């Protein structure tokens, strides 16, 4: 039942043989003459769209970036100051010196890398099992997995905290990582993707006598590169930004990730100087942007590789 669907079978012929298509066909020759012009026009629209998107997304980002270089008074200037004056790169050195930044950073990397490795392995294997192995109760089990997406973590933390404390895992990486390691999102994503792969490939692989793992690594994964990279990326971002759970379980900078270290820059009563807070935010975000740039390339490379083999 649930969450099942096959590759949507919409071959081109079907679409074109719809009655409405015939009505349009008359226009075809007429348009063939204007095709290059239309192409250019659509390019222009494309660039316009690009510019608009850039503006809406970039303007606030630009503002955040500039704020990280502003002094306190400059942040609150009215009219808004578009270029920091005076330019205050000392916000960054302040963050670096106030926090034990490298320690928190290392903790974040340990937590995120462990979780990405665990979750991606679990996610791919579970998805593969759900997609290709029929076993009794598999759809019920799958529904259980997806069901976890419906449970907000606000209701799980107290109970999990009690369990982790009883196990003596407080203020340890194990305590932070294990409760977060179950993967529902990735299982869902990858299973959907696996299902959309052409069936013939598996039949061919099975006929060749390829085993479970061989098929997975030699046939299925190479065809799934873009989706897999999206999975890796989203997992990394989610875990990098975890706050509530690591906050409750960790006590000291021995294990606490960056997001928790950053709260030291804020003040509860009175004025927070937002320049360093923004600088800290930018510093924390950069690794994820770099990761995106790296993975984006392999998303595209994976696609071309997959296309050749498929």
């Amino acid at each position, binding site marked *: 039942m649930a969450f099942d669907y096959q590759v949507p079978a919409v071959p081109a012929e079907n679409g074109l043989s719809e009655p409405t298509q015939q009505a349009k066909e008359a226009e075809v020759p007429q348009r063939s003459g204007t095709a290059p012009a239309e192409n250019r026009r659509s390019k222009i629209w494309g660039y316009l769209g690009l510019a608009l998107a850039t503006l809406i997304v970039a303007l606030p980002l630009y503002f955040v970036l500039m704020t990280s270089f502003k002094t306190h008074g400059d942040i609150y200037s009215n009219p808004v100051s578009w270029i920091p004056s005076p330019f205050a790169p000392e916000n960054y050195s302040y963050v670096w010196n106030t926090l034990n930044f490298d320690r928190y950073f290392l903790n974040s990397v340990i937590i995120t890398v462990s979780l990405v490795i665990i979750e991606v392995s679990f996610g791919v294997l579970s998805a593969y099992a759900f997609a290709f192995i029929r076993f009794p109760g598999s759809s019920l089990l799958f529904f*259980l997995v997806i069901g976890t997406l419906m449970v*907000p973590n606000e209701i799980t933390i107290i109970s999990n905290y009690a*369990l982790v404390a009883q196990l003596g895992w407080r203020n340890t990486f194990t305590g932070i990582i294990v409760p977060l390691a179950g993967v529902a999102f990735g299982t869902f994503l990858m299973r*959907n993707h696996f299902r959309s792969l052409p069936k013939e490939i598996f039949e061919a692989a099975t006929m060749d006598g390829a085993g479970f793992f061989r098929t997975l690594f030699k046939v299925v994964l190479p065809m799934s590169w873009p989706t897999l990279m999206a999975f890796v990326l989203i997992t990394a971002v989610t875990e990098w930004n975890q706050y509530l759970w690591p906050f409750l379980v960790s006590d000291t900078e021995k294990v606490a990730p960056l997001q928790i270290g950053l709260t030291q820059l804020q003040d509860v009563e009175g004025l927070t100087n937002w320049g360093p807070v923004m600088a800290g935010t930018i510093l924390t975000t950069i690794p994820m942007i770099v990761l995106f740039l790296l993975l984006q390339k392999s998303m595209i490379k994976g696609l071309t590789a997959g296309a050749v083999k498929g």
Partner: protein
Amino acid sequence: MPNVVLLIVFTYRPLIDNIRLSFYNWNISSTRPATFVGLQNYIEWASNPVSWQIVWQTIIFTVVAVFGSMVIGLALALLLDRKLKGRNFVRSLIFAPYVISGAAIGVAFQFVFDPGYGLIQDLLGRVGMDSPDFYSSPGWALFMVTATYVWKNLGYTFVIYLAALQGLRKDLDEAAEIDRTPRARKFFRVTLPQLRPTTFFLSITVLLNSLQVFDIINVMTAGGPLGTSTTTLVFQVYQETFVNSRAGYGAAVATIMFLAVLVITVVQVRMQDKEN
């Protein structure tokens, strides 16, 4: 499957704990045993008009967040799937907000929305308009948190759609190309149906994610103005449990929310099944 074990231990066990707790009156800090009160928490919730206001706000927020981020995300993915100069840069740019934590965005956006010194009042001021009271008018406050949420999560729908577009079978595209199918028609006849699995996937994950929005609301408005104007269900759970220390009542709200989400998701899945 160790994965399923983890999920059962760390999600379903707490969930069951939570449902049990919803029948008790329990102050979260209390060392005294909780008292069993049956359905009283549920009755109190349902008979309080504020609860229904919160439900309504949750619906508005979720519907706008889901449609907004999916439609815009798809449009951007289509745009950037084309061979345009500078697309790699713009792709990274659109994804950037998604990697920033919600709390940080909430903090940063006060410099965008604040009617006293924000970016928007500056821009509106240049064309001679007054800035709306984003923080004190209930409608504008809800608009503000919703817009911020969509802005932040565009990167997610965008990346998933982009990955899907790139994985599409190009032969279908080419077939349509040869037939000179108009672009819009090609989109509705060829591309969109091919994207249906992705759309379905996104509609579920974005819905579930947006129902659990917490950071942005907590930092930007703390659920206010007027006390509850931007409070969503999950924020109410948090407030009741941790701020008002009424863990039993909070658990009841959480259970109601969980059941509602369960029903919505099952309906979504059924609809998807029917279409196929």
